[in-house]
């Protein structure tokens, strides 16, 4: 299966705001996302920004951690496709990469994004691809905005479901970086691969600009979480829908 182009996705840590409400919140956004990105809660969200880190902490404190979070999806499932985000570090020993991917596949995920893989386990890249395919998943890759060109080319050659470009140094933190330039450069390197962009996107205009710069999709996490915190589900939904429309409008040339 391929993701829709353009695409809009919301990131949420699975288990946030709480085990009870998590699914409900996700479903409330359903009309305005093309797919979800769901984080497996961890005690060491090492490459995440403060807002996302807090959601991990909340989930873990509520007793939801790692693959257990997938159980929340059993209660009825989601109406849109989803991919998972997990730190490989947490699973290497138990249940191992294969176990992680198999459970993800069983839960219906399209792929598992491992943001620490390129930095901490670069030598495991091919293994991850093999194991994903073996589990019936597509590989998904993470890249930062200071990333070797050779790796982007390599990613592209491995036919991923998507290449996730982290536009900012961490999720939810906006620094004065010429993100559109980076998207244009990434696009040149990844060719026709599906390019998902995220980290600290919070406005419809930014999302639209990213699509115009060459991204296939945009994912929003921290901003939706903050909206949820400040204005509840309604506010989160309004934000998601406005960005969804911007993304789709931008692609249509609006």
């Amino acid at each position, binding site marked *: 299966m391929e993701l829709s182009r353009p695409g809009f996705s919301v990131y949420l840590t699975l288990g946030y705001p709480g085990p009870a409400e998590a699914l409900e919140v996700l479903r409330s956004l359903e009309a305005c996302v093309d797919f979800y990105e769901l984080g497996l809660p961890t005690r060491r969200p090492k490459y995440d920004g*403060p807002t996302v*880190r807090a959601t991990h902490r909340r989930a873990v404190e509520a007793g939801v951690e790692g693959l257990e979070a997938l159980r929340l999806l059993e209660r009825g499932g989601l109406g849109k496709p989803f991919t998972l985000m997990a730190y490989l570090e947490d699973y290497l020993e138990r249940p191992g990469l294969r176990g992680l991917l198999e459970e993800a596949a069983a839960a219906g995920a399209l792929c598992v994004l491992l943001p620490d893989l390129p930095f901490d386990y670069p030598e495991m890249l091919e293994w991850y691809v093999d194991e994903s395919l073996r589990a019936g998943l597509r590989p998904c890759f993470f890249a930062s905005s200071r990333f070797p060109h*050779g790796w982007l080319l390599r990613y592209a050659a491995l036919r991923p479901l998507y290449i996730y470009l982290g536009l900012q140094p961490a999720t939810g933190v906006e*620094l004065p970086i010429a993100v559109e330039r980076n998207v244009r450069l990434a696009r040149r390197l990844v060719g026709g691969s599906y390019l998902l962009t995220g980290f600290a996107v919070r406005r419809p205009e930014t999302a639209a600009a990213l699509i115009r710069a060459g991204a296939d999709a945009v994912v929003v996490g921290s901003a939706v979480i903050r909206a949820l915190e400040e204005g509840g589900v309604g506010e989160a939904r309004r934000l998601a829908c406005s960005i969804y429309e911007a993304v789709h409008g931008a692609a249509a040339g609006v």
Partner: protein
Amino acid sequence: MVDVPRYWYNIVADLPVPLPPLVDPLDDEAAGDGLGSRIGLLVRILPSRLIDEEYTLSRLLPIPEPVREAYRRAGRPTPLLRAEGFERALGVSGRVRIYYKYEGALPTGSHKLNTAIPQVYYAKLDGAVEVATETGAGQWGLAVSIAAAMLGLKAVVFMTRSSYRSKKARRIAMETLGATVYPSPSEVTEAGRRALRENPGHPGSLGLAITEAIEYVLSGERRRYVAGSVLESVLTHQTVIGLEALEQLPEEPDYMVACVGGGSNMGGFTYPAIGMKLRGEGFERTRFVAAESAAAPRLSRGEYRYDGLDTGLVLPLARMYSLGKDYVPPAIHAAGLRYHGAAPSLSLLRRLGLVEARAYSQEEVAEAARLFARSEGLIPAPESAHAVRAVVDIARRAPEGTVIAFNLSGHGLMDTDAYEKLGVAGGGS
């Protein structure tokens, strides 16, 4: 004739594996100092354009025209020289050919101006009226003071206390240029006061001075911190050295050597060549050698892990070879080499075996400096003398036809106190 390059080179684009990102300490919430995410804090600390250069996918970064112009004013391109006198003095004439890039030709006497100029320029673009920074021997502080005077900003420099005392000439030079210089630890910041309370005789460390400078920036308006080394963008700025050298070198060296404090002159000198090697465009057999001080041997003896860039953890953590952010190195004369860590990209290259490291004691370095001064007529900075020392080692054992190029990152005309104490001045010749 070689001109000033139009682009800086960003090696991150060519690394064989991705560079681990800067990250927040995971226990930040617990720290409770109210500063929040260290990554997020950068926007209040660093000049905006520097942040953008830190996070770019571009392999080549255009050098802004005013910066290029200032480079020209400052005397770039710097010369690349053949060290014939030194070859003779080493007894390797005809067997080994030695070249060096002479960054001491810049008006501050070191390579530091290469990044001081763009950073102060970027601070000015942000509307800043003051730039603050740390300094060891004073080479960096002096470079910032000059750049600030050139561009009409005020410089505030936290100078490690041991150097504040021993490198008086550089301190006064900074003051003459209009800079305010504080000994670090100082009474001016909370971090400084705390360190002094704990150890009234604290000699200072670069890590602590960074924390102080940043605290100073965060506690006022229209201030920016400028970084002397370690950040990728700083190493990128320094690649003017290596890009010029590629044009100037008459032959591909077997060795390229530089000293390492934070890694900026090493990165600046070698990255364009390492990049070519990584892209398969040349320098296949070239070995890249980092010369560090045995007093702070992070690349040789440090641990490769996430650690604080500064003692106070006001900056994010970086994955690098480190002796620990709280390491206070002995007060050696090469104060610029006293940093506890090394730039993430350089650390990564070291880990991958693309860069080798050698650590030298102050005494063996002094001997090399003496030999070089007397045969070439240029007094190396105590920092740069570490590279000279490594070259001596390599040259003496090298087979016929070996070509060595090194970066003479600065001159030691203002470090004569050191050479006097080390017995390099006077004596036989």
